[in-house]
C-alpha cells in the first residue's frame, strides 16, 4: 500500500493548490501572531479561521482529486491490486498531504509564537483531526456520486451543514427549550459535530470560557478532565473512521 500512496502523495505535493494552501495558512497564522500582542487572542482568531477554512479545503480538494484520479484508479484496479488497497492508498496520500500542509502552515507559526504551548498543541491536534475527518467525508460522498458536479455539490452541502446549519439548529433548540436544563443535551449535540467539538475543546482551554456561564462551567468540568479528553478524541476518531469504512464498503461493490 505504501508503494502506491507514495506516488499519490508525490503527485499531490507537486500540485500548486496544496502549495498555495500551505502558504495561505502560513501567512494568516504568522500575520495574526504579529498583529495581536496577546498570543492567546491570536490563537482564538486563528481557531475561527481554521474551523471554517480547513473543512472546506479538505472537502473540495479531496473531491476534485478523487474525480481527477478516476481513470488512474481504474488503471490501478486493472492491476493485481485489491479495491481496498487502492482506495486506502488514495486516502492516505491525500490525507497526509493535507495534514502536512496544515502542520507546516499553522504548526510552525504556532510553535514559534504561542506563549501557552498546551493550547498551541491542542490547536494543532484538532486541525490534524479535522483534516482527516473531512477528507474521509469527501471520500464517502465522492465514492457515492458518479457525477463530478454532484460530488462537489454534496461536499459543499456537508460543509454548510457542519459550519452553519448545525449551529443554527442548536441555537434554535436552545432558545425554544430555554426553560429546561439542557446542559447534557448540548454536550451530546456538540459531540455530533466535529467542528463544534474542536471549538469547545480549545475554547475551554482558554480563559474565555469563564464568560460562558453555567454551561461553560459544566463543559469545563467535563472536557477539562482526562476522561473528557478521551471522549473528545474518541469522537474524533469515530468521525474519521466511520465515513472511511462506509466509503470502503461502497467502493468494494461499485461499478467503475
Amino acid at each position, binding site marked *: 500500500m505504501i508503494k502506491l500512496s507514495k506516488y499519490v502523495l508525490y503527485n499531490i505535493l507537486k500540485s500548486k493548490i496544496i502549495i498555495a494552501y500551505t502558504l495561505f495558512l502560513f501567512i494568516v497564522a504568522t500575520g495574526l501572531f504579529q498583529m495581536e500582542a496577546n498570543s492567546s487572542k491570536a490563537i482564538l482568531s486563528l481557531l475561527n479561521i481554521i474551523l471554517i477554512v480547513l473543512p472546506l479545503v479538505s472537502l473540495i480538494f479531496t473531491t476534485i482529486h478523487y474525480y481527477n484520479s478516476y481513470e488512474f484508479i481504474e*488503471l490501478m484496479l486493472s492491476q493485481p*491490486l485489491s*479495491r481496498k488497497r487502492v482506495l486506502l492508498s488514495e486516502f492516505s496520500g491525500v490525507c497526509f498531504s493535507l495534514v502536512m500542509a496544515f502542520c507546516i502552515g499553522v504548526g510552525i507559526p504556532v510553535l514559534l509564537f504561542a506563549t501557552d504551548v498546551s493550547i498551541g498543541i491542542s490547536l494543532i491536534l484538532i486541525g490534524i483531526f479535522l483534516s482527516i475527518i473531512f477528507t474521509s467525508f469527501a471520500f464517502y460522498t465522492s465514492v457515492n456520486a458518479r457525477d463530478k458536479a454532484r460530488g462537489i455539490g454534496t461536499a459543499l452541502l456537508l460543509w454548510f451543514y457542519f459550519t452553519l446549519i448545525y449551529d443554527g439548529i442548536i441555537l434554535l433548540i436552545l432558545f425554544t427549550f430555554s426553560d429546561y436544563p439542557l446542559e447534557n443535551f448540548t454536550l451530546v449535540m456538540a459531540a455530533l459535530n466535529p467542528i463544534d467539538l474542536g471549538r469547545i475543546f480549545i475554547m475551554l482551554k482558554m480563559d474565555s470560557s469563564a464568560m460562558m456561564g453555567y454551561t461553560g462551567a459544566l463543559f469545563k468540568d467535563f472536557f477539562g478532565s482526562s476522561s473528557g479528553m478521551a471522549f473528545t478524541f474518541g469522537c474524533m476518531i469515530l468521525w474519521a473512521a466511520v465515513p472511511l469504512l462506509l466509503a470502503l464498503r461502497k467502493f468494494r461493490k461499485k461499478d467503475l
Partner: protein
Amino acid sequence: MIRINHLNKKFKKLIALNNITVQFDEGQVVSLIGPNGSGKTTLIKTILGLVKPDSGQIYFRDKNIKQEGFTYRNEIGYMPQIGRYPENMTIGQLFSLLKNIRNKDENSLDYDLLKQYNLVSMYDKPMRTLSGGTRQKVSAAIAFLFRPPVLILDEPTAGLDPLSSEVLKEKILQTKKEGTLILISSHILSDLDDLTTDVMYLQDGKMKFFKNLATIQEDTGEIKLGKAIARLMKGEDPAANMISEILKTNR
C-alpha cells in the same frame, strides 16, 4: 482460458449485458464489435472485475474470478479507452510504479513499444504535458509491458496517428504468434482485418454471433471484415434494410 457463463448486467433500466455465454482460448484474437452502447466496454470491464455483474460467472483458467480475488489480473494487460493519468506524475514514475506492483523479473519485461514510440526519451515529462495520442501510446506500452498471457485492448487505435497505429498492429501480430489471447474492441474494422481470428458481435447487450473469421468469410463470400459484417447484419437489422432500400430508389 476465459469462460463466461450466462452473464447479466443492468445499469438502472439499461440492459448492458444480456445473458452472455462465451469462451475465449489461447492464441485467439477476438474482435469485439458492435454499435456504440452495445456493451463492449462493459464486457471488458466485467472481465477485469471493474464492473460487478448482476448474475453469471466468469472463469479465468477455470477459476471463478469472484473467488480468485485480484491475483488473476497478474496475467492480464489492459489498455483502456481513455488514458488519463495523475497530472504531475512523469512517464518514468508511472512505469516504475507499475513494475513495483507486479514485481516481475526485469529481464522478462517487454520494452518494445516504449522504444518504438520513443517514450524512453520522455521519461521525465509529466503526464499533463502529453498529447492525447502520446497518452494512448503510454497506455499501449503499459498493456504489453509484462508480456501477459491475456491482452485486453479497448479501442487501441483510436487517437493514434497512422504510423503509430501500424506499429501497434505489428506488435499485436507478433504477440499473437506467441499464443497470447487478445481481445480487441474497435470500430475501425479495417484495422482488425489482418489481426483477428474470431469475431464477437454485440448489440444491445446481446451476443448476436461469435464466429471464426474463416467461417464468416465463407458464409458471406466477402474477404474484407467490414463488408462481411455489413452483409451479415443486413439480414438482421430492419433499419439497415430500410436505408439500402431508400438508397436504391434514389438512384
